[in-house]
C-alpha cells in the first residue's frame, strides 16, 4: 500500500500533535493569585473625582476635598462631625474641657500612647504647631487695596479661618507634655470646631531646619506676636512655615516616609499619580473607632457615567457622582447597588439689593410674592429628589435640628404661594425696572431666572436680564450693577461664624447693602455665645428679622447622591464635604 506525500505528512503531523498535546510546557502559573494575602476584613474601593495632591489639606493650595478625605482616614482628632451634623468627641484620642467660661479657657489633652506611625508620640508640640497655624499669631503682613502684600509676612498659608484662635495668646503647655491650654480674649462661638491636630510637628521641625520638636516649641513660645505695623524678619519661623506650606504637596508617594505619617486608622501605602491610591491599616492604631476593613483604595474617575459603569462592572464599590436626573436614573436601573440621596449643604438663593428700586420694602415684598419657589423646585430639583421642598430659612438647612423651629417662627409662611394680586396691590400701579444678575452658564440658575422673571412680569415688574458668563458673575457680586442676584452659598453645617458674614452691615458676604441694627447686635452676640442652644435662639431671631425685612428668598438645595455595591455595607449618606467617608470605619465587606 502506498501513501501519498500529503497523507504521510498529515499522518506524521497527527502523531506529533497527539504526542505534543500530552506535554504542554509546565508554566507553573496554575496557582491562583492571592494578592490579598492574609487579609480578613477585605478591601473597599471608593471613587473620587479629584486627584490627590497634598498630605497637608490645611494649606490654601492643598485644601481640595480629596486631600481632606485622605487626611480624615489617616489622622485622628479630638472630634469629628457625624451625618446629623453633630460634633462627636473621640475620647480615646484625647479630651478637651472648658476650664473656665470667663475668660473662655479650653484645655486640650492627648491621651498617653497615642502616636504617629513612626512611633513618635502625639503631644504638646503637635498641638502648639496647630495653634501657631490656626491662630495666625505671627502674621504681620500688611496688604494694599488690591490684596498685594506690601510689608511683612503671612507665615502659615492656612486655608481655615484664623479669627477664632486669633483671640488666644501663646498657650501654656501642661506638665505631662501632652496638653495645652488656650485662653480666649473673649468668648468665641465656634471654639469647638476651630482647633485640631494637623501635620506632625517633629517632621515640620526637622525638615524646617530646626534641631527637633522641642526647638520648634521653644521657637513658637518665644517669638513675639506679629504686628503689621512693625513687621520683623523671622527667618527661622519662615523656614518652618515654608515647609509647612509646600513640603507635604506631592502627587506621588514620597520616598521620605515621614511626609505621610499616620495617626489614624489607615496609612497610605501606595499612590499611582492621577489614577489611584491605596491605604492599609495602621497597625498601632487603637485610639478611636476601629475600622472593619483592611484596605481602602481610592480610584479617581471624573465622569459620572464612567463612575456608574465602573460600579456596575464591580471595579469599584462606592461612588458619589455629580447628581443629575440622568445619573440617578442610570443608578437606579443597576442591580446589586444601593442608591442614597439627600441634600447638599449649599443652597441657591435670590438676594435683593437694598438700593435702587428695592430700597422700598413694599417693592421687595411684592417681588418676593411673585417668586414661584415651588415651580422652581419642581423644574430643577424634583426630578432628582421628588420628596424635597423649597428651602424656608436663610440660616438653617433641613439637616440641622433647629430648622423646623426656625421655619415656624421666621415668617416664611407668608411666601409659600405666589400671590400676584397682592403684589400688584403693593406696587400700587408702579412698574419698577429690576435687573437680575446670575451665572448664565449654569442651567439651574438660568431656569430659576426664567421662572422668576416670567412671574414678576405678571405683577408689573420690568425684568432686565443681567445674566453674566461663568467668568464674570462672581466678580460682579456686590458692585451694585444689578438689583437682584441669584447664586449659591456653601454652608458648613456646623458653626455660626458664617452668619455675620452674610447679614451684618460690614459682613464680607453681604453684597446687598443690607443693614439692620438688630441683626448687627444679634450677630455680635452670636459669635460670642458658646452655648449651642442659645446660638440657635439668636440665629432664629436673625432669621425672623431677615424675613421681616424682606431680605430675599432662599430657593433650594442641590441634591447629592452616592451609591454602593451590595458587596459592602455600612455606607451612609453625608451632606457635608466629607461625604461618604465620614463613617469609613463602619464599612464592611459582606461574605
Amino acid at each position, binding site marked *: 500500500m502506498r501513501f501519498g506525500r500529503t497523507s504521510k505528512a498529515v499522518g506524521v503531523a497527527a502523531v506529533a*500533535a497527539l504526542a*505534543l*498535546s500530552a*506535554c*504542554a510546557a509546565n*508554566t507553573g*502559573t*496554575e496557582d*491562583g*493569585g492571592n*494578592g*490579598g494575602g492574609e487579609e480578613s476584613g477585605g*478591601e473597599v474601593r471608593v471613587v473620587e473625582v479629584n*486627584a490627590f*495632591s*497634598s498630605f497637608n489639606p490645611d494649606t*490654601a*493650595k492643598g485644601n*481640595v476635598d480629596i486631600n481632606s478625605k485622605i487626611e480624615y482616614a489617616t489622622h485622628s482628632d479630638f472630634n469629628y462631625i457625624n451625618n446629623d451634623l453633630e460634633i462627636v468627641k473621640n475620647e480615646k484620642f484625647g479630651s478637651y474641657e472648658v476650664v473656665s467660661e470667663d475668660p473662655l479657657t479650653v484645655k486640650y489633652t492627648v491621651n498617653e500612647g497615642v502616636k504617629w506611625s513612626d512611633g513618635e508620640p502625639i503631644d504638646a508640640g503637635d498641638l502648639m504647631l496647630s495653634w501657631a497655624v490656626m491662630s495666625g499669631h505671627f502674621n504681620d503682613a500688611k496688604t494694599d487695596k488690591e*490684596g*498685594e*502684600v506690601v510689608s511683612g509676612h503671612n507665615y502659615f*498659608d492656612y*486655608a481655615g*479661618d*484664623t*479669627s477664632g484662635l486669633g483671640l488666644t495668646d501663646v498657650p501654656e503647655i501642661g506638665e505631662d507634655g501632652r496638653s495645652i491650654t488656650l485662653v480666649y480674649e473673649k468668648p468665641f462661638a465656634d471654639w469647638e470646631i476651630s482647633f485640631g491636630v494637623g501635620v506632625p510637628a517633629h517632621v515640620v521641625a526637622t525638615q524646617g531646619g530646626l534641631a527637633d520638636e522641642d526647638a520648634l516649641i521653644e521657637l513658637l513660645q518665644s517669638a513675639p506676636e506679629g504686628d503689621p505695623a512693625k513687621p520683623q524678619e523671622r527667618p527661622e519661623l519662615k523656614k518652618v512655615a515654608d515647609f509647612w506650606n509646600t513640603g507635604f*504637596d506631592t*502627587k506621588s508617594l514620597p520616598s521620605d516616609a515621614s511626609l505621610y505619617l499616620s495617626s489614624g486608622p489607615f496609612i497610605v501605602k*501606595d499612590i*499611582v499619580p*492621577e*489614577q*489611584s491610591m*491605596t491605604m492599609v491599616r495602621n497597625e498601632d492604631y487603637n485610639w478611636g473607632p476601629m475600622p472593619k476593613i483592611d*484596605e481602602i*483604595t481610592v480610584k*479617581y*474617575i*471624573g*465622569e459620572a457615567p*464612567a463612575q456608574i*459603569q*465602573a460600579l456596575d*462592572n*464591580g*471595579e469599584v464599590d462606592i461612588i458619589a457622582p455629580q447628581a443629575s436626573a440622568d445619573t440617578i436614573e442610570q443608578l437606579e436601573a443597576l442591580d446589586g447597588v444601593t442608591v442614597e440621596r439627600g441634600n447638599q449643604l449649599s443652597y441657591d438663593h435670590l438676594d435683593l439689593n437694598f438700593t435702587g428700586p428695592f430700597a422700598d420694602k413694599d417693592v421687595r415684598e411684592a417681588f418676593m410674592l411673585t417668586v414661584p419657589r415651588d415651580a422652581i423646585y419642581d423644574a430643577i430639583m424634583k426630578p432628582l429628589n421628588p420628596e424635597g421642598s423649597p428651602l424656608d430659612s436663610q440660616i438653617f438647612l433641613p439637616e440641622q435640628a433647629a430648622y423646623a423651629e426656625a421655619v415656624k417662627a421666621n415668617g416664611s409662611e407668608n411666601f409659600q404661594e405666589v400671590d400676584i394680586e397682592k403684589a400688584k396691590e403693593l406696587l400700587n400701579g408702579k412698574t419698577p425696572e429690576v435687573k437680575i444678575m446670575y451665572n448664565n452658564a449654569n442651567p439651574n440658575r438660568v431656569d430659576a431666572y426664567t421662572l422668576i422673571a416670567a412671574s414678576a412680569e405678571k405683577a408689573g415688574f420690568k425684568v432686565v436680564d443681567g445674566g453674566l458668563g*461663568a*467668568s464674570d458673575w*462672581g*466678580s460682579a457680586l456686590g458692585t451694585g450693577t444689578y438689583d437682584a442676584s441669584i447664586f*449659591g452659598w*456653601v*454652608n458648613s453645617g456646623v458653626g455660626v*461664624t*458664617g452668619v455675620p*458674614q*452674610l447679614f451684618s452691615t460690614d459682613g*464680607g*458676604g453681604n453684597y446687598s447693602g443690607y443693614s439692620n441694627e438688630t441683626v448687627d447686635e444679634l450677630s455680635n452676640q452670636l459669635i460670642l455665645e458658646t452655648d449651642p442652644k442659645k446660638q440657635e435662639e439668636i440665629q432664629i431671631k436673625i432669621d425672623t428679622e431677615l424675613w421681616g425685612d424682606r431680605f430675599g428668598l432662599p430657593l433650594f438645595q442641590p441634591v447629592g447622591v452616592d451609591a454602593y455595591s451590595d458587596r459592602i455595607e455600612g455606607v451612609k449618606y453625608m451632606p457635608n464635604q466629607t461625604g461618604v467617608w465620614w463613617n469609613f470605619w463602619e464599612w464592611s465587606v459582606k461574605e
Partner: protein
Amino acid sequence: MVTYIVRRLITAVLILFGASFIVYVLTALSGDPLADLRQLRTPNKDALIQARTELLDLNTPPPIRYFIWLSGAVKCVVPFLGTCDLGQSIQGEPVTEALARAMGQTISLVTAATVLAIIVGISLGIITALRQYSGLDYGVTFMAFLFFSLPIFWLAVLLKEYAAIGFNDFLAEPKIPLSALLIIGLVSAVIWGILAGGSWKRKGLAALIGFVVAFAILFVMDKTGWFVNPGLGPVLIAIFGVGVAYAVTGLTSGLKNRRALYTALLMVPIGLISYYAINPLLSMATPLMIVLLAVATILVGCIVGYFMGGYDRGQSMRAGAISAFLIGGLIVLDRFLVTWSAYSSHSRVRGRPIATTGASTPGLDGDFWISGLDNFTHLLLPTIALMLASLAGYSRYSRSSMLEIMSMDYIRTARAKGLSERTVVMRHAFRNALIPLATLVAFDIGALIGGAVITESVFAFSGMGALFINALNRVDPNPIMGFFLITGILALVFNLIADLAYSVLDPRVRVKA
C-alpha cells in the same frame, strides 16, 4: 535643502510665539479662577481669595503674565539658558512633572490604537481597492464610515456595556447558549461569504465553511472550558505556526520560492523546541528580556534563511525573520493565555477582568505576565474605541491611493512582462501606494502626544487630554501652556518631517530652497 529646513524652522518659531500668546490670553480669560471661593460664606473668604490671587498673579494683566511665563519657558526650548521652568499648576505641582507623567499615560493609551489603526486601515484599504465595487468593498466602506461618524463617548459606553460588563458576566459563567452559537455562526457565514467573492456558488460554499468553522470552534471552546482556562498549547502553536509560515512566505516571496517556504516552515519546529526550552526563563520574564528574545528570534530567522540560501538569500531571510517573530509572538501569547485564569481569579481583579476605567488595577502586584494582562484588560476598550474611530481615514486614503496606482501604466507594463499578481501588487503597487500615506502617518504620530480628550475622560485616563481639560476647568494657564508647547512643537516638527519624507520617497517631488 538646508536652507529650506532652516526657513521652515524659523517660521515654526514665529508661529509658536504667536500661537502661544493667543492660547495664553484666551485661557486666562476663559473663566474665573476664583469661582469656587466666591460661594464660601466663611470669614476667611477674602484671605483665600487673596492667597489664590497671589499664587496665580491675577492682579497682573494676562498679556504681561504671558511674558513672565515665557521667560521661564524659553529655557526649556533653547539649551544653555538655565533650568527649564514651565511654572506650577494651581495645586503647586511643577508643570514639567505633570507633563512627563501625562505623556507616558497618553503614549501607552494611544500607541497601540494608532499602530493597529494604521496596519488594519491600510490593509483594508488595499484589499478593498483590489476588489473595488465588490460586496467586501461596500461592506468595509459602510463599516468604516459608521464607526467614523459614531461619537466616541457613545461608542465607549456601548463597549463598556457589552465588551466589559457583558463579557465579564459571561466569563463568570462561560456557557454559550445554542441560539448564540447559531447567530455567531451566521455572522461568520456572512463575513466569509463577502470575503470569498467570485461566483455565488463560491460565496455560498465559503459561507457554509464559515458557519461550520465558527460554530465548531466555539462549540469546542465552550465544551472544553477554554474560556475559563485558555491557552494554545504546543498543538495549536504548531498549527498556527504552519499557517503563519505559509502566509508570510506567500506575501514576501511567493510560495514558489521553496527555500523561503522551507525557512519559514523550519521556524515551527525551532519555535516548538524553544517553547519548551525557554519555558523556565519565561517564568521570570521582564520587558527587557522579551525584547531581547524578540531580537534573538529575528536573528535566528535571518540565520536560517541565510543558510537556506538559494538564488535570493534576502527573500528567505525576510520570510524566516518575520515567521520567527510571529511564532515567537504565538509562544508569548500562549503564556499570557495560560496566565489568564490566575489573573482573573486574583483577589484584586475580583473575577471581572475586562476593566472600564483607569490604566491598571490598584494594588495589583504581579509578575510580568499578570501586569501585562492587567495592562491589556485596561487598554482593550479604549484601544478598540480609538482604533475604530480612526480606521476610516486610513482605509479610505490607502484605497484611493491604491486605486490610482493600479491604473498606472507601469502596472500594466509589469503585468505585461509576465510578473505574478503577487509581485505586481506587493512590489510595484503597494509600495508606491504608501507614499501619500507617509504624510498622514507622520502627522498622526505627531498628534499622538496630544492625547484624546474625550476618550481619556470617558475611560478615566490621566493623559495629556485630561491634563488639558482639567487645567482649563480650573482656569489654570500654566499646564495648558505646557500642553500647548509640547503638542505645538510636535505638530510643527512632524509636519516638516512629513514634507521631507515625501520628497525623499517620491523622486518626482523635490524640495526647493
